[in-house]
């Protein structure tokens, strides 16, 4: 059966340092996958390859059955294939206004490339009402990002992905540095993705709060996948133990992961 995303034997190195050593990774339609692992395991590199920021050196990648050419692939192509990545506030430009941040890279322009500012602001106001629930905060489409709080910035990043209706949403540490209330918003967002029949990959160190909304977990260690677990078959406690065991042992023990 065709998968939404299929990666086979993916290799990637930076200046001689091998970050990914033959990754096989799949995400099905309407599936929520948690990508787990310690710092430096290669999680970020993997999602940056999927989202078109980095290319890969070796291996094959298919999105919706379309073979990806690593030389040609880009964030723009990823967007056009319905792959949307939320990097939290890391992907916001602080001095620029909210409306410019929502539409950067996908500006609403006329044929000459001039931006339809009124339209972009209108859409931004709509996004703020519908997705962010910004009411009475005092922020508007013209506010610079630096005037917003951490939670509000995250709201902007997530709303941007929701607005562009992705088929595969990638979330980079979605619950890090958030208040409990904000974490609930993120969980609701993931649940919405699932309910709409879309897919999601998220990266996390700490899975306690995202465990319930996930379908499957993939554990990465030192550039390799060391375990794949269906949520139905593993409790949160067992999963945490697996993660700890892999990091402590410092070497992959793949036979203990329930391979699928």
């Amino acid at each position, binding site marked *: 059966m065709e998968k939404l995303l299929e990666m086979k034997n993916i290799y990637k190195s930076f200046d001689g340092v091998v970050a990914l050593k033959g990754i096989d990774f799949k995400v099905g339609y309407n599936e929520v996958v948690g990508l787990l692992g310690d710092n430096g395991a290669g999680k970020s590199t993997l999602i940056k390859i999927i*989202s*078109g*920021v980095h290319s890969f050196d070796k291996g094959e990648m298919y999105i919706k059955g379309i073979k990806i050419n690593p030389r040609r692939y*880009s*964030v*723009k192509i*990823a*967007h056009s294939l319905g792959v949307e*990545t939320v*990097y939290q506030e*890391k*992907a*916001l*430009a*602080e*001095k*620029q206004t909210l409306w*410019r941040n929502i539409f*950067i*890279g*996908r*500006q609403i*322009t006329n044929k*000459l*490339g*001039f*931006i339809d*500012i009124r339209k972009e602001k209108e859409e931004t106001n709509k996004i703020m009402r519908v997705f962010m629930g910004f009411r*009475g905060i*005092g*922020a*508007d489409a*013209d*506010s610079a990002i*630096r005037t917003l709080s951490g939670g509000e910035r995250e709201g902007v990043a997530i709303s941007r992905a929701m607005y562009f209706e992705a088929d595969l949403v990638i979330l980079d540490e979605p619950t890090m540095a958030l208040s409990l209330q904000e974490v609930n918003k993120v969980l609701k967002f993931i649940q919405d993705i699932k309910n709409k029949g879309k897919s999601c990959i998220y990266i996390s160190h700490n899975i306690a709060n995202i465990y319930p909304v996930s379908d499957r977990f993939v554990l990465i260690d030192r550039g390799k996948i060391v375990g794949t677990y269906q949520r139905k078959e593993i409790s949160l406690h067992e999963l945490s133990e697996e993660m700890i065991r892999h990091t402590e042992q410092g070497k992959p023990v793949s036979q203990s992961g329930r391979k699928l």
Partner: protein
Amino acid sequence: MNNLYNNSKAKSTTRYKSQIALIIMAISIFGLFMITSPEVFLKGRIYQAFLSTVPIMGFMALGLTFVLAMGEIDLSFPSVMALSGYIFAVTFEATNSVILAFLVGLLSGAIVGFINGSLITLIGIPSIVATLGMQFLIRGFSNIISSGLAKRVALDTTSSYKIFAERLWVIPVQAIWLLGLAIFFYFLLLRHKFGEQALFIGDNQEAARMMGVNVNRMKTMVFILMSVVASFAGIVSCYRMRTWWPTMGEGYLMMVMAAVFVGGTSMFGGEASIEGTFIGAFIIGSLEAGIVAAGLSGFWTQFVCGILIIVSIIIHTLSKRRKGS
């Protein structure tokens, strides 16, 4: 709702605070000149002179504003002015075609810009170092090909002389070119996706990349833009003096940077003021004449210029800080 309204109103006043300060500064400087030497500054001639000399510097200041918006710097433009001026002059001499000479002249600038951009994006050299090297290289190259000799260019015999060197009624045409270019750059920076992407790169390069901006291509294009306006400045200088000379552009580096900084564009990238640069160019470009006319020696020029730069940057920085809090 009330809250929202107050907030946006407060924002628009701080947004214009440093522009207002700049305009007040410009008016008081010219006011001072009028008091100290009324015989010069209450007559039209000096302003006509400014309107034909300041634009040469203004073209490059506009280009540099774009480069700074992107968080980069270009030091090579004074040499590009000389190189392209020379190429324009010899092409005109050889073919007698103004159009061809213009195209070749601007193309030579575009090539330098492309080399600058490639050094910065492909090899990864910081722009200040790459363009410093290019500044020497291009100056040396134009000296070699010209043997360091000035060249007369008989442009006053062509009909294009009216468009690039004479006056429209009492206004020197250079000033009209500068105004046109400033309006174009204003829209390019704030209304076009080209400018928006440059601002994002200056603000947060990684964010720009992650949101699908082709950072390397954008940077190269902005460096090409900068060099092409420097070429244009060189060509317009040839028209003005009907001569090309080997030291063309020397002395402009600091003046142009001063104009941009006085105008309120910062080195940090992510924000820029085209209108500020426009006013800044006229402030910096008129200082020397004003100081000399006031009877002070030329030594005072740099001193006063320095005070102006420092004071205006303090004003811009403070008004931005208040905006942030």
